[in-house]
C-alpha cells in the first residue's frame, strides 16, 4: 500500500507527536520504505498458525491482594514538571 502525506499526518496525530510541516514529506518516504519492506511477510503461508504473544508459557502466579507499598507522595511527585500542594499541575482536561 502506498502511504501518503495525509495518512502520515493522521498517524502522527494519533501518536500525539507534533511533526513540523517541512519534515512531513521526508517522513512519508521513510515510512513508506519501511512498510513496503515489511510487507514481504505476505509471502509467508500462515494459514492456521496461532499468533505468538509470549515466547515461553509462563504460569501467572496468584499473590495475596495486599498493600505492598504506599505513603510515598514525595517520591511520586519528585520528577513532576509542575506541582502544587502535593498534586501534579496539568493543563485543563475538562472544559
Amino acid at each position, binding site marked *: 500500500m502506498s502511504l501518503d502525506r495525509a495518512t502520515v499526518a493522521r498517524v502522527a496525530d494519533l501518536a500525539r507527536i507534533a511533526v513540523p510541516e517541512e519534515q512531513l514529506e521526508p517522513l512519508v518516504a521513510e515510512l513508506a520504505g519501511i512498510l513496503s519492506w*515489511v510487507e*514481504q511477510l505476505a509471502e509467508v503461508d500462515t494459514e492456521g498458525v496461532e499468533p505468538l504473544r509470549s*515466547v515461553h508459557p509462563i504460569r501467572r502466579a496468584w499473590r495475596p491482594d495486599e498493600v505492598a507499598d504506599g505513603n510515598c507522595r514525595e517520591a511520586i511527585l519528585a520528577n513532576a514538571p509542575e506541582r502544587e500542594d502535593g498534586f501534579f499541575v496539568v493543563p485543563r482536561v475538562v472544559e
Partner: protein
Amino acid sequence: MSELARLGLVEARARLRRREISAVELTRACLEAMERGRHLNAFITETPDRALAMAEAADARLARGAGGLLEGLPVAVKDLFCTAGVRTTAGSKILANFVPPYESTVTARLWAEGAVLLGKTNLDEFAMGSSNTTSAFGPVINPWTPPGREPPLVPGGSSGGSAAAVAGFLCPAATGTDTGGSIRQPASFCGIVGIKPTYGRCSRFGIVAFASSLDQAGAFARSVEDAALLLQAMAGFDPKDGTSADLPVPDWSGGLSGRVKGLRIGIPREYRLDGMPAEIEALWAKGADWLRAQGAELVEVSLPHTRYALPTYYIVAPAEASSNLARYDGMRYGLRVPGRDLVDTYKRTRGAGFGAEVRRRILIGTYVLSAGYYDAYYLKAQKVRRKIVQDFEAAFTRCDALLTPTAPSAAFAIGEKSDDPVSMYLNDVFTVTVNLAGLPGISVPAGVSASGLPLGLQVIGRPWDEATILDVARALEEAAAFRALPPGAPEA
C-alpha cells in the same frame, strides 16, 4: 594506565579476596581511566562519589571476610536501568532530567552482591538503534577507531556506551539490554564478550521499556568467565515482572568448563547470505573447525524463515514501542513543552522530546496497530514469529547449540547507513531471530577483519540453556586466542 584497570572481574575478585588490592584502589583506577577515556563519550553520567562510597563499604565487608558474588567489583550500567537517586535518561531528551525514585531489580541485585556503580553508559535513544548515533547525548566512539580516522567508528548499538567502556578498559564489565541484538552486535564491533540470556532470566522491572516481549538484560565483559559471573548476579526470579521465570539460576561461573566434546553444533544454512563479506564467511568456517577440533560434531540445519525475521521484528518491536512510549506525556515526569491545551501540550512535548528514529518507530507502530491494518501487519507478524520459533525448535532436535556470525560487517563509521533506515536495520540480521524466539545468545571476539577490526561469532542455545552456550563460547575464546587491543585503549 594503572594495571588495575586492566583486570577482569574474576581476576580482580581473587585479588580482592586475598586482600592484595582494595575495592577503593580498583574503583579509583577505573574512575581515572574513565576520565582519560572521556573522548569516547561512553558515559552519560559518571558517579564517582557514589562509587567510592560503595567501594569503601565493600572493603569493610571484605575485611570482615564477608561479601557477595561481586564484592568490590566496579561495573558500568546502561542508562536504561533505573538507579534510585541517579539520573536515568534512556539516551533521550524527554528523560534528560529524570531521577528515578526506585531501583531496577537487576541493579538492585548487583548492589546486593557488592558491586560498585561507576556510572551510567550512553546508548541509542530508548535503545533504538545499531550504532549509538541516535542518542540525545551524542554518539559514542569505538575505541578500535584507528588514530586520526574521521569520522570515527561506531561501537554498535544500542548498548554502545557499555561496549566501548569495557573494550576501552574504562571498566571491567557492564550491563546492557538486547531487544534485537543490542548487546551482541556492539560486543562484536568492540571485540568483547556480550551475552543475552533467555527471555525471562533477568527481571525487566525498572528497565525503561522498549519492546516488552523482546527486551532482555545481559552482560558485557572482556572474557566469557567474567560475563558468566556478572550475568549470574543479574539473573533470577522477580515477582515484580510478570514474565520473569521462576527458575533457579545455575552456577554459570563455577560450572564453566569450556568442554564441547560430544556436543552437536548446528550451522544454519540460511545464515549464509548473498553478498556476505568473505572474511566473515571464513571466520565462521574457522569457528566451526575450532569446535570440531575440540570434539564437537558439526551438523547443517535449516531455519527457513530467517529472512522474514527482520521484517517481523520491525512490526512487533515498533508496535510494542508505540504502546510503551505512550507514557511520555509530560504530565508526571520528564520533559513538558506547554501548548494551547492538553492535546497540544502532549504533541509539543513528544515532538520536541523524541529524536528522529524514536519518532519513526512510534509512527510505524501506531500505523500497524491502527484500525484496518492490525490484522495485515501486527497479527501477521505474530504468526510469522511463531514460524520462526518452530524453526528453532526443529533445529534443536538435531543439535545442542547453533554457531553463526554475530554481525554482517565490522564496525562502520559514524554517519554511514544513516540515510536509509532499512540498511541500518540489516545490522541485526543474525541476532534478531534470537530475540523473536526468546533464546539465549552470546557473541565472542573471534578474529579481526582485513582492516584490523574485531569480528565476533555468535552461539545460540535452547531456552534456559545458557550453560551450554557459555561452554561453547569459552571453547571458541580459547581457540581464537583473541589478544588484539584497541588503539584507543589507554597504554599499559
